[in-house]
């Protein structure tokens, strides 16, 4: 894609802004590179700090002498402590399982709902579409109290299932909204041809629409997975035993004990909990960005 874009662009350093080549290099350094460098430094510094703290031995962490930006004697002690003396591996597994199931469930429900609203155009589908958009705007922080009561009544309290079933409430509206946009771009004629050839609606959905909407499915899936991975308030409220916790909640509630903070293992926990989403994201950046901006633009 990049190569194509470059081929289309006119030569001699012009870019899409047209007149940028008129600005001199020193001016460009001051107006573009310096501020951009400052932005990148501030945005990335916490991650660097997380990583460097993870490998620092305690003596270096708690000393004000020497250069704090580098490690003299790197150690794996904090990671070892995290993996073998805490329930961290359980939390990691829980998070993956919960995020995976919630994503799958939401995609399933959203594909059907989006197809139904956008292509079947049944009576009242416009209003359903509107209410899905409104549902997207309901924040979890006003829902968690009544949801806790419902989860308790359904005897799901302190189970992973409670999170798998409640995460779709913020995932389905988002995924449906995103997929509706993708389905809209598929020509009706394809569907009509298949109908004339005797295909059922379900066959059309599975064999024609879904293959064409794969980029949309990936966008929605990646987005849903990272949102579930990052969820905090439901996981904090609905789960109380250590074995069922997710990474964000486990790190915040269990690794902080008393007044002595184990910064090394806390940072190791934050780093290891962030890496899986960061890696997943790095493979699908384009899909993620198109999901993010698509949802805003629609």
């Amino acid at each position: 894609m990049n190569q194509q874009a470059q081929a289309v662009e006119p030569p001699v350093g012009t870019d899409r802004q047209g007149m940028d080549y008129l600005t001199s290099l020193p001016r460009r350094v001051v107006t573009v590179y310096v501020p951009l460098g400052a932005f990148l430094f501030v945005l990335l510094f916490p991650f660097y700090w997380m990583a460097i703290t993870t490998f620092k031995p305690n003596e270096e962490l708690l000393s004000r002498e020497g250069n704090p930006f580098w490690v003299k004697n790197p150690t794996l002690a904090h990671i070892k402590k995290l993996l073998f003396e805490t329930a961290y591996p359980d939390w990691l597994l829980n998070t993956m399982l919960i995020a995976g199931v919630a994503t799958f469930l939401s995609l399933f429900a959203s594909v059907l709902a989006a197809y139904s609203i956008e292509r079947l155009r049944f009576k009242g589908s416009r209003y359903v579409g509107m209410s899905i958009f409104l549902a997207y705007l309901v924040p979890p922080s006003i829902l968690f109290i009544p949801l806790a009561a419902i989860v308790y009544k359904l005897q799901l309290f302190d189970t992973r299932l409670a999170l798998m079933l409640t995460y779709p409430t913020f995932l389905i509206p988002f995924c449906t909204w995103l997929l509706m946009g993708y389905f809209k771009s598929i020509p009706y004629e394809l569907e009509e041809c298949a109908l004339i050839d005797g295909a059922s609606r379900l066959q059309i959905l599975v064999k024609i629409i879904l293959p064409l909407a794969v980029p949309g499915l990936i966008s929605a899936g990646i987005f849903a997975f990272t949102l579930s991975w990052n969820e905090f308030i439901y996981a904090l409220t609905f789960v109380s035993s250590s074995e069922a916790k997710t990474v964000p909640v486990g790190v915040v509630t269990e690794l902080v004990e008393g007044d002595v903070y184990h910064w090394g293992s806390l940072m190791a926990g934050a780093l290891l909990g962030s890496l899986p989403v960061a890696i997943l994201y790095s493979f699908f950046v384009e899909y993620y960005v198109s999901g993010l901006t698509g949802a805003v633009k629609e």
Partner: protein
Amino acid sequence: MRTQSTVLGRALDNRHLLGLVFLLPAAVLLLLFLTYPLGLGTWLGFTDTKIGRPGVWVGLENFEFLWGDSVTRLALFNTLFYTVVASIVKFVLGLWLALLLNKHLPFKAFIRAIVLLPFIVPTALSAIAFWWIYDSQFSIISWVLMRMGIIHEYIDFLGQPWAARFSTIAANIWRGVPFVAISLLAGLQTISPSYYEAASLDGASEWQQFRFVTLPLLTPIIAVVMTFSVLFTFTDFQLIYVLTRGGPLNSTHLMATLSFQRAISGGSLGEGAAIATAMVPFLLAAILFSYFGLQRRAWQQGGTDK
């Protein structure tokens, strides 16, 4: 058997009926875990329910109590302050970053990818990193400022009311700027370069191009992005819960953290639900704002208002 399957088959060919069948999984999940709790939450706000004890209708008692409660008033002030300051700064910095990223840059795709990192990493976990950066004894910021001779003792970032407010706002801005920047960048990329060429031929300065070309064309998307940003910020929970739990002296309590404290830690579900319900009017105002922003978009693109 045969007739049954044809009846079923004919029914499934009817798109109105099939539409409802396809809608079923999403509708069940959303009605049970979104619409019902939304109603239940509002109802709970008018009862004196405690954890483990069903409550009775008490009318406006919760709201009357909360209106006179100094902690709730402080939380309302904090939430508005937090939202207004963080949103304005996020907008200015986000727009600036978007304009920078829209220029011709080496490694553009790579830079855009890493800019979004703060947004995709779990907020609770990056908040822990900020907790460490803000530590009263080992803060790296204090260390640097000491070395540069700007301060003479370590700053207590999260221990003083106003310092804590600004520290949490800074962390929120750090997390929110990438979202604003990347969304606005997508909007910038839809503006045709020919407008800028025409403007510069007419002798428009760089500032005039920004003021009279970029800004008006970007307004609709700014409205939507900022509505989302305001919604997220107003209902923020994780950052405060991890960094300060509302302290010191309730100076960083937001409506969401206060309702968690009253309902879950304190056990007064009714009171907590009332605080959550009190957030709804503010959210509705933001959504209406977004609605009119979207309407404006239709005619700006040459379409008609519906």
